[in-house]
């Protein structure tokens, strides 16, 4: 296992210091770490486990259970494409295929230029204006392949 560098260790320690007193603190801590670093460094698992009196296996088990938590750094932006039924009913699979092709990436991977990590989402709650994608925290509705190109262009150099 690689060593944690200082900023990473600090981010984890800050999250632990402010949140470990909460009942059921593990998810809030993981959220805080990922919000700061973009992912949860595997080398930091032991630190979190020690603070909560858990085993590394338990912490790893939680991280790997939830789709949202990442164990490696994402690209500059995260593009979530909804794959659920309402989007499929509006030809969302075309938008999906287009996203993969444009970014030369599959779900869970990052475009070669490091700009976008592509993630599958199972409902973004915008089902009356499908298909839907979300870039970081910005939601877009009625995203045809053409519209997706505009969205990507808007974010590419932000």
């Amino acid at each position, binding site marked *: 296992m690689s060593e944690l560098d200082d900023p990473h260790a600090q981010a984890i320690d800050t999250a632990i210091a402010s949140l470990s007193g909460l009942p059921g603190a593990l*998810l809030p801590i993981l959220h805080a770490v990922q919000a700061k670093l973009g992912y949860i460094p595997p080398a930091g698992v032991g630190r979190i486990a020690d603070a909560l009196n858990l085993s590394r296996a338990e912490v790893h088990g939680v991280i790997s259970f939830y789709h949202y938590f990442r164990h490696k750094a994402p690209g500059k932006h995260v593009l979530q494409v909804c794959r659920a*039924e309402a989007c499929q009913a509006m030809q969302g699979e075309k938008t999906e295929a287009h996203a993969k092709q444009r970014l030369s990436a599959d779900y869970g991977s990052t475009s070669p230029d490091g700009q976008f990590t592509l993630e599958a989402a199972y409902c973004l709650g*915008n*089902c009356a*204006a499908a298909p839907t994608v979300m870039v970081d925290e910005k939601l877009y509705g*009625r995203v045809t392949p053409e519209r997706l190109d505009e969205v990507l262009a808007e974010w590419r150099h932000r």
Partner: protein
Amino acid sequence: MATRIFISRDAAAQALGADETAVALQVAAQAAGRSVSITRVGSRGMVWLEPLVEIEHDGQRIAYGPVTAQQVPALLAAGLLDAAPHALRLGRVEDIPYFAKQERLTFARVGITDPVSVDDYLAHGGYLGLKRALTLSGAAIVQEVTDSGLRGRGGAAFPTGIKWKTVLDQQADQKYIVCNADEGDSGTFSDRMLMEGDPLCLVEGMTIAGVAVGATQGYIYLRCEYPHAEHALREAIAAARARGFLGRDVCGSGKAFELEVRMGAGAYICGEETSLLESLEGKRAEVRFRPPLPAIKGLFGKPTVINNVISLASLPVILERGAAFYRDFGMGRSRGTLPIQLAGNIKRGGLVEKAFGVTLRELLYDFGGGSASGRPIRAVQVGGPLGAYIPETDFDTPLDYEAFTAIGALVGHGGIVAFDDTVDMARMARYAMEFCALESCGKCTPCRIGSTRGVEVIDRIVQGKDREANVALLQDLCNTMLSGSLCGLGGMTPFPVTSALKHFPADFSPQN
């Protein structure tokens, strides 16, 4: 005096450009030397009209929509700020048939008030329910909820009052109220809209629940796909706390109630209440065996009321207007109203709050205007990814828990996803199994393994391999999942699969 303008801050409105429209209006008004004050409100629920712009004129709100940022300068020149005629002018929102035909009880304030303003909330009837609840005993509040006929709006439709009674009757040093805001079903967004458009209503509802059963701590477990709702909830909770509606002494009653938002992490299974509790405790969200019920041993082993957003947000109106008022809406054993969501391939998608009893056909055509593509609607899925696919022949079924059970379907959380005649139902059946495999918590075998085998069997059927034997195998597998799974994920995934196979058998052939 500044002209008041209302534009939605709802995620769906933002997804269609509401932020850009608001900025463009501010800029264009300034350039024209007009003073305007823009309030960001919830969405009226007519998503096809978003971004919707409402201008206050002679004490009325006149709507224009959909208004993109590009159209703003021309609209302003045409007299938008004076509510002048225009092709995009819709008149009073209350007169638009889609809106006028609704019965808005739970969503009464959504789209009207500033979601995070306590003053606005109070000015529109907010906290009257809690005020009355504080004059009643816990048992009397629970009785009121039981008498209202309210059943869990998350999908299980369990009588809310009965659940509460169990928690009320427990002796414990700590009890909890947990709000299930893990709205993962595709085609549903009423929880999100309520949390973004009137979060104080949820805060009030949870406080009423706390006062009723003697719980002093509440948690809202919110899915992480809803950042807009998170911001609205956090703002609303802080505002309520600052005004003494949350805290150690709620409204000077001597009763304590605290509230915290906790974020989920992208696991559909957390919509199942026991796995949600596991997740809140900081664990892998694996489903618990029942008994014990969460009402007896719930969060951290303590008696816990766990209810869906809409169930909790319906409490203020029930307490304010009384059980009979609410119960008088609806049909049969389905009392009150349901915020229905029209989604997928539908021309006029959005939120329709109606008393139970409205038929699918009325919803799809009178409200929804048919498909977005203009092609015939071939099937609808009601109640999320675990809901059955319903063919056109059943569209006259009224929205009612028992009527839906009778046709082998479920109302669930009230999401309706429409598909036109280009849909491949074998593909949708396969997706249901695929989704189950992806989201299974892994605790029980029928769900964990059955879903993967289900995908394989459907593939073989579609390829025409030993069709009859494989169809029989799929039915058998579905029966095993149905009766052998620990929770609804494995237990209900067979519904979309078998309904697709039953109503659309031709789609499951190699010729298709």
